[in-house]
């Protein structure tokens, strides 16, 4: 018997358990542990020892005592809901025009319509003030020509406009996807029964894409209530929960209060998820599609022109802030004058003198975090797809949590988790890498899961039976076949990490400022030139990463965002 056991041990393949076990341990240490700790510490008062006896609701009581807390909560709700509404008002018609009418330049709209998802919204946020602010160009001309000015956009209106213009693509792309994959025969059968065009849209087309709209609305809501950068720059006294969290962390270093606000922020998100599931559960349509026929397109000339104007308008308006950033970065002393008078590379010259470190830091942190996220995310998706775990949903949820949670909440969790206790990382670059990698791992996890489910298990079995060990099979067969999925996820991770702000703002230290932190600091000190020069560099870096990946993968940008 003993000999039998030793022989079994000798022939047992440890490698998969070792490698995959390691990935699971990392998951527990860097996601489960800090998240549990932040929940716990939200019930502890600042300065109290973290014991069960010290549990208290005092941190949460602030929401009934403090007007600042109350208004931040209400403001967050308003921003979330209004942004969802506006995103739908922009995204749904745009999706309809691109999918169902003869509007030209469809690829152009789809590609540029994806850009706002990749370009960090805070970079362009200040442009709204430059353009539409009280001292802005538009108001200057309006005043000069017609003698009136637009209402002030500083505060709530600016925040809502800036966020909406960066979130509407979720509604646009998801609705577009649903519209083009819907069975055209369904609409035709409604028409043959005598329904008019509007009636078909109202009673057939729209109801069929409602699940997609709800999914998009949920992401828009999560992004809006979790956005830190835009309200930080445009909000002024208009506080939302993320800026309140930041205020508690940097102003008072009260991590416990920040944790409690974070919890409330999370509850908002959780409530939105439950609501969206409730809505879609009643409306899960399974359409049996037997045709590969493309979606039917309306031949109306009116809709064609309406669509062209609308889509161009939206694209122009949503990219206007970033165009302004690039334009302004080549000017001198604008924002002081009415409009730019002198063009030069001065701002860039200054950047290369004083701000090379943030660029280097961002590149280093984003690359490191992307690499770690790629390795761990790939291994975890392998476990998720190939190992028949009973608790698969737990793994899935744990990996996806940092994607669902607002970035600043993840930042607080990581700071709470690793500024005391067994593993202390605060103040180092490592804590930033941890925050970055757990926030972007979901991208890699999703895209590799998608490519792994398309690989026939028999292909791996064929390698095994030929004599390859688990590691050899993984290295020579599975990994090469997953590579496109890994690359797609990695590029999006890298591109969005380059301009990451909401987690960074909690975790960065003086030595490890990133591009995004430097931009915000310049903006706060009203040095627009260097801020926009850095912003331009950031935009160029992000776009070239995406462009390169598109070349390698041969995919369109909007396709790369399919998993979100």
């Amino acid at each position, binding site marked *: 018997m003993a000999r039998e056991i030793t022989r079994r041990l000798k022939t047992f393949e440890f490698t998969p358990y070792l490698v995959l076990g390691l990935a699971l341990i990392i998951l527990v240490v860097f996601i489960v542990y800090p998240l549990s700790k932040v929940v716990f510490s939200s019930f502890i008062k600042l300065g109290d020892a973290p014991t069960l006896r010290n549990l208290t609701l005092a941190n949460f009581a602030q929401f009934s005592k403090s007007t600042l807390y109350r208004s931040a909560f209400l403001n967050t709700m308003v921003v979330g809901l209004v942004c969802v509404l506006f995103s739908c008002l922009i995204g749904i018609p745009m999706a309809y025009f691109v999918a169902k009418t003869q509007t030209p330049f469809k690829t152009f709209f789809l590609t540029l319509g994806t850009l706002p998802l990749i370009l960090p919204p805070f970079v362009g946020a200040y442009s709204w003030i430059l353009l539409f602010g009280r001292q802005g160009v538009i108001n200057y001309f309006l005043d000069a020509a017609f003698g009136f000015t637009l209402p002030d956009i500083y505060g709530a209106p600016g925040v809502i406009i800036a966020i909406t213009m960066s979130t509407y693509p979720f509604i646009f792309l998801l609705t577009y996807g649903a519209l083009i994959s819907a069975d055209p025969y369904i609409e035709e059968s409604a028409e043959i029964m005598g329904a008019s065009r509007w009636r078909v849209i109202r009673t057939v087309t729209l109801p069929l894409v409602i699940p997609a709209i709800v999914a998009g609305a949920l992401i828009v809501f999560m992004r809006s209530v979790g956005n830190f950068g835009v309200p930080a720059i445009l909000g002024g006294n208009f506080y939302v929960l993320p800026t309140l969290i930041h205020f508690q962390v940097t102003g008072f270093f009260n991590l416990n209060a920040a944790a409690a606000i974070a919890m409330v922020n999370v509850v908002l998100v959780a409530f939105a998820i439950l609501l969206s599931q409730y809505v879609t559960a009643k409306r899960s349509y399974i359409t049996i599609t037997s045709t590969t026929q493309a979606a039917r397109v309306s031949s109306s000339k009116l809709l064609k022109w309406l669509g062209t104007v609308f889509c161009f308008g939206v694209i122009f308006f949503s990219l206007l802030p970033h165009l302004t950033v690039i334009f302004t970065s080549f000017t001198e002393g604008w924002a002081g004058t009415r409009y730019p008078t002198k063009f030069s590379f001065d701002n860039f010259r200054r950047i290369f003198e004083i701000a090379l470190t943030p660029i280097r830091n961002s590149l280093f942190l984003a690359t490191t975090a992307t690499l770690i996220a790629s390795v761990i995310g790939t291994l975890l998706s392998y476990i998720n797809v190939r190992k028949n775990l009973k608790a698969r949903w737990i793994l899935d949820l744990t990996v996806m949590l940092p994607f669902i949670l607002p970035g600043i909440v993840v930042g607080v969790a990581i700071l709470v988790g690793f500024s005391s206790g067994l593993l202390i990382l605060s103040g180092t670059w490592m804590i930033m890498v941890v925050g970055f990698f757990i926030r972007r791992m979901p991208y890699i996890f999703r895209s590799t899961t998608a490519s792994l489910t398309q690989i026939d298990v028999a292909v791996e079995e064929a390698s*095994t039976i030929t004599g390859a060990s688990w590691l050899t099979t993984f290295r020579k067969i599975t990994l090469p076949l997953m590579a496109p999925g890994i690359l797609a996820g990695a590029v999006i991770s890298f591109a969005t990490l380059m301009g990451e702000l909401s987690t960074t703002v909690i975790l960065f230290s003086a030595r490890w400022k990133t591009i995004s932190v430097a931009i915000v600091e310049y903006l706060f000190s009203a040095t627009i030139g260097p801020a926009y020069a850095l912003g331009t560099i950031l935009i160029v870096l992000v776009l070239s990463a995406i462009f390169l990946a598109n070349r390698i993968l041969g995919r369109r940008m909007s396709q790369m965002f399919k998993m979100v």
Partner: protein
Amino acid sequence: MTEQDNSRITLSIRNLSKVFGGKNEQVQALNDVSLDIREGELFTLLGPSGCGKTTTLRCVAGFEKPSSGRIDFLGRDFTSIPPFRRNIGMVFQSYALFPHLSIFENVAYGLRIRKLPRKDTEQKVNRIIQLVGLEATQKRKPSELSGGQQQRIALARALVYDPQLLLLDEPLSNLDAKLRVYMREEIRRIQQQAKVTTIYVTHDQEEALSISDRIAVMHAGKVSQVGTPDEIYENPNTIRVADFIGQANFLTCEVQANADPVLRFRSGEQITLTNSSDNVRGYQDTEGILFVRPEQMEVSAAANHPNSLKGQVKVILYLGSVVRYYIEIFQDHDPQEILVDQDRRVHGVGVGDAVAVLVHGQEAKLFPTEQRQQLEKA
């Protein structure tokens, strides 16, 4: 089985059982399966889907762990060896070629893992690709090959490193009918040249009969019968095997044991089986089910033929090599339709005609009546 046969057993499966599922839902995929596979033979596991044939194969490969029982290969316990150390070649139903590797690299894969010198690798790959007749495709990717070509490359990849055992899991099910017939002959030829012990899984009884040295017919996780194709076809040991393999007629009757037994049917007609098999002559019970293949009967236009059953022709199907007659017998007593195959059209017999059906006693068989439930309800 003779002494000599015993000494040549390569793979021995003993009391293999496999249960899938957790506490709530359990499926017994294999139930006490025992098989002996001899060196160099092509052994087929045949049965309908869900009979356990693929599970058996996957246990031999090592992809499934048996719930109990053991598998011995050349006297070594196979069950504790991980699949990649078993030195097995396997062809999958989907071929499972590596889509990112060229045909050459696909075939060379096993040799690279065995760290063969470059020259030997090239030589072996070239030889095996030649054996399967696809010299011109080496640089292409699998997606550029037709189904039949992919099939052969899968076979070449499985054979190139001289495995001790070759497993084929429904390898022809993705090919069209004509190619299927051609490829099964190819597989047989290549297997014979490579002299490799082979287990072949299929649900197609014609394929099994034509390609195998021996066949195990499986049903519901158990082995129903093991034998050569001739034995399985001509001498099935149960009604189920008789029904699954080929076409068959089953007629309930009373049996009068005799040197030439007399069978009495529900119509009152009776026939005497002359030259009958041991099975019929040794049949003890007074009731039985007569099993007779369509080609072991004869249609006669002479309605009053002695020692025959009266019937009426319902349908005549011309199948090329045979002519199949659907004949209704026992017309006044719960009629039953039987099939009779003739080499050519019987002169003077058309649809609707009254005919006599003769039974050739030497190949007929009797089964106990309680096996009737094994007949699949159509």
